[in-house]
């Protein structure tokens, strides 16, 4: 039996699986677990559906852990589910959100890579699929989506950290997520993905400097979201379109989700700004999660109010 799960610590995959079971067991009326597929190494991909409503209600899809070494990301998804179940009935906003919408939370997207970063290589980023005609392992799942997938030449080298895979959605993990989102498109009104580091709140596009049609709306939400985040510990985030705020990227989940019809899509680059980078100490997990939750709750409130 895996050791004790803790929201103040980084948890390995076994602990996270046990935690998902515990959450379903403790909150059967609010949390259910959906197996949306399996990974290249046959690990399960679990989405937790969090909310009181039936599947027809508005929903937000959130994923964490697409890049293996970005450990603060899965920590936030666990914290979100914990706070949702803990403050339902106590916190007015969270109660309203959970009564009227659902959250589909994928605590770890890149399970094989996450396990590898715990057991073999803390600096690992990609998944663990084998590449034909190459000794190099892994695809960058956030270059594997069908969103201008082949627009950058240097994502075609299997040995590169940003290898895009042999074709869009070639990876089992990507396909499981896109299939789930496509089959829930009617209800999913927003998509939020969590990465680290650099303290940014980003929106489409990454593959072009062209702005999305509702960029003013996205910009406003991102501004207020980062303002909300800063109220807790004055942590400063910048925000804007990926291509100009961060740098141009092809094949990202954010652009794909936007293009498939979800018109409010955001990517968080969580703490910090480089002092620790991917090695954010556990003592900073809680404060990072608390401040991020403020932004996510604002975004969810906005989605509840402004989407049909």
């Amino acid at each position, binding site marked *: 039996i895996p050791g004790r799960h803790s929201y103040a610590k*980084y948890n390995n995959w076994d602990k996270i699986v046990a935690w998902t079971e515990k959450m379903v067991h403790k909150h059967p009326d609010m949390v259910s677990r959906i197996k949306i597929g399996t990974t290249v190494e046959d690990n399960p991909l679990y989405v937790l559906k969090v909310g009181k409503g039936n599947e027809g209600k508005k929903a937000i899809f959130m994923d964490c852990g697409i890049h293996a070494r970005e450990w603060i990301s899965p920590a936030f998804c666990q914290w979100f589910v914990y706070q949702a179940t803990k403050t339902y009935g106590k916190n007015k906003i969270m109660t309203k959100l959970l009564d009227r919408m659902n959250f589909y939370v994928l605590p770890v997207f890149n399970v094989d890579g996450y396990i590898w970063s715990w057991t073999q290589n803390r*600096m690992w980023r990609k998944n663990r699929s084998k590449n034909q005609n190459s000794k190099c392992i892994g695809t960058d799942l956030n270059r594997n989506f069908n969103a201008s997938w082949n627009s950058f030449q240097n994502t075609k080298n299997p040995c*590169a*950290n940003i290898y895009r895979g042999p074709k869009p959605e070639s990876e089992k993990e990507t396909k499981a997520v896109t299939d789930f989102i496509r089959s829930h498109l009617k209800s999913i009104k927003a998509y939020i993905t969590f990465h680290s580091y650099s303290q940014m709140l980003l929106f489409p596009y990454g593959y072009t400097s062209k702005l999305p049609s509702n960029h003013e709306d996205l910009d406003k939400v991102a501004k207020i979201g980062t303002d909300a985040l800063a109220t807790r510990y004055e942590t400063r985030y910048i925000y804007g379109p990926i291509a100009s705020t961060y*740098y141009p*990227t092809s094949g990202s989940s954010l652009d794909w989700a936007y293009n498939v019809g979800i018109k409010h899509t955001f990517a968080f680059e969580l703490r910090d700004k480089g002092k620790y980078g991917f*090695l954010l*100490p*556990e003592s900073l997990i809680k404060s990072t999660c608390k401040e991020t939750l403020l932004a996510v709750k604002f975004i969810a409130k906005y989605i509840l109010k402004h989407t049909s």
Partner: protein
Amino acid sequence: IAPVRFDREKVFRVKPQDEKQANIIKDLAQTNQLDFWYPDATHHVTANMTIDFRVSEKESQSIQSALDQNNMHYEILIHDLQEEIEKQFDVKED
């Protein structure tokens, strides 16, 4: 298999002031094993951008010499990555 260790590996933060210096970073990436932390890959490197990359102990001296020779702004964010990896677990079990 024993886990990979990162003893005395370093993370550099470099701010190329112009395209010439940005190209120096790209050249160094051709001849050394640089793991880009920010941005994710070499081809995103441009002038006036903050660049973080990890490099092995062995290669870090030559990297540092190259940066010094070209009068480039840099700092070392992490001096021993393995130490930081072990230090990240700084919360006791509940």
